[in-house]
C-alpha cells in the first residue's frame, strides 16, 4: 500500500501505521491479535468477521466506546484503547 504512514496510540503506547486502513487490520498485521476480552468470561477476542457484523473487535477510539475496529480507518494521532473487561460477574444468589 502506498498509504501515508501516521502516528497513533495503542493503550497509550506510540505506534505508526498506514492511514486509511481500518485499525483492526492495522493491528492484526502488527501482530496484535487481542483487541479485547469477552465481558462475561474474560476470554481474549480479536478480529473475526472483518465487516462489522460480529462486534468482537470493539475498541474505544478517541474516547468513544464500542467502535468496531474493522470499520474505522486509521487517522493521524488516533487514540486506540482496548476495553478492559468489567469486574468478573458474580451471578451469586442473594441470600
Amino acid at each position, binding site marked *: 500500500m502506498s498509504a501515508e504512514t501516521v502516528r497513533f496510540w495503542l493503550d497509550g503506547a506510540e505506534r505508526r501505521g498506514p492511514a486509511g486502513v481500518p485499525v483492526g487490520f492495522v493491528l*492484526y*498485521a502488527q501482530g496484535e*491479535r*487481542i483487541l479485547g476480552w469477552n465481558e462475561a468470561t474474560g*476470554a481474549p477476542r480479536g478480529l*473475526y*468477521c*472483518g465487516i462489522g457484523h460480529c462486534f468482537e473487535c470493539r475498541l474505544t477510539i478517541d474516547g468513544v466506546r464500542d467502535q468496531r475496529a474493522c*470499520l*474505522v480507518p486509521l487517522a493521524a494521532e488516533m487514540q486506540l484503547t482496548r476495553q478492559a473487561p468489567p469486574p468478573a460477574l458474580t451471578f451469586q444468589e442473594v441470600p
Partner: protein
Amino acid sequence: MSAATCDAVVVGAGPAGLAAAGTLTARGHSVLLVDEAPVPGGRLRAQWYRLGSAVWDGRAEVRRLVEGVGAGATWRLGTAVHAVSGTSDEGFAVDLGAEVVRARTVLLATGATEVPLAMPGWTLPGVLAVGAAQTLWRGWHMAPGRRGVIVGINPLGFAVAQELADAGLASLAVVMPPPGLATAHLGSVGEQWDRLLALAAGAPPWAKPVAGLLHGRPGWRRAAMRWFPAQGIRVAGARLQLTRQALALEGADRVEAVRLQRLDAGGEPVGAPWREAVDFVLLAGGLRPLGELLGQVGAAMGHYEGLGGDVPLVTTRLATSRPGVFAAGNTLGIESARVAMAQGGLAGLGMAAHLGDEPPEDAWQRARGAMAAARRQVPFTFQPGLMQARAQHRQDSAREVGP
C-alpha cells in the same frame, strides 16, 4: 441536494446498491448512499479471480460502478442505519443516528454475512471468518499468518486459498468441520460432499480436480471417500483433506494448534486425534443473507435453504411487500456479484417507477437481459439447490406480493 430529504435511500454500497444508485441518478433522481464500511464496494472489493484467460477484478468493478453513480448522489460511508420507519406516502424516516433522512423509496441491499462455525476454540484471536482473510489480503495486502487451516468447504474458502497460495504463503489445508455444530447442515460429511458436488458442477478452474474426481455421479460419495488420499489432493493451491476433521481450535491467548481427527469412508472417526501447530485458522461456514432491516420494516419473508436462508418475497421489479421498499443483491439470496449488480439495475428501475418515473420498455428489457446474462455467467454455484430454491421463491413471491 439536501441530505435531509431525497428521492431514494440506498442502504449498502456493494454491487447491488451501487448499480441501483447509478440507475437512479442516471434518471435524475436524488439518492443517498449509506454503508457501514469506510469505503464503497462491499465484498466485491475483495474479489479477484481468473476466469479462463480473463480476470475478475472486484476493485476495478467497484471503480466503474462508483463512476456510474456520479455526482447525483450524497454519500454516507462509515454510517450505520439504525432504523427505517414510516411509509412511502409520508416519506420513510431513515435513522442514521446523527441524522434522520426522509425518502419516498428505500433499497435494502445489505448483502450477506458468514455463517459461524461455532466449534470449540472458535473465538480465539487468530481465528478468522474466511471473508476477513480475503479482505485482509485483497483489500489491504496483509497476510492472515504463515501456517493455517481452512475449516469447512465453500467457494470463498477455495478462492482465498488460491490467492494466498499465489502470494507464496505456506500452503493451507482444507479440513472438515466437527460433528454436531448448531449449524448442523454444514456439519455432516455428506453435506460437505454435496456442497463439493455443487461446486464441481460449475467447475471453476480451481475446482477442476474435484470435478474430474466426482463427475457429480450419485453413489460416488462413499467410493471416493474410501480411496481419498489421507494427505488430501491439491485444489486451488490448498490441500483438500476430506478425511480429516477439525475437532477443536486450541491456544492460550491466540490460536496455536488445531486438533484433528482422521475419518473413514463412512465419515466415522478412526484412530486417536492429534494436534498440528497453526498461527491462523479460517472458518468457511458459507454465507447467509442479511435481512435485519427487512425484518425491521416488516417485509414478508420466506426461508429457502438454496438461497442461503431467510429472504424477502419480491415482485419481478424487486419490490418487497412494503410499498416503496425494494431489495437487491445477496440479501435476496446468495448469488454472484454480477447477479447482484444486475439486481441493482432492476431495482433502480423499479424505484424510479415507484417515484412516478416509469422507465420505457427497452430499459426493462435491458435490465432483465443483464440479469439473465449474469446468471448464465456464474462461475460456480454457491448453494446446492439454488435453481430449485429460486423457482420456489419466484412462485411464492408471485402469490404473496404479486408479479
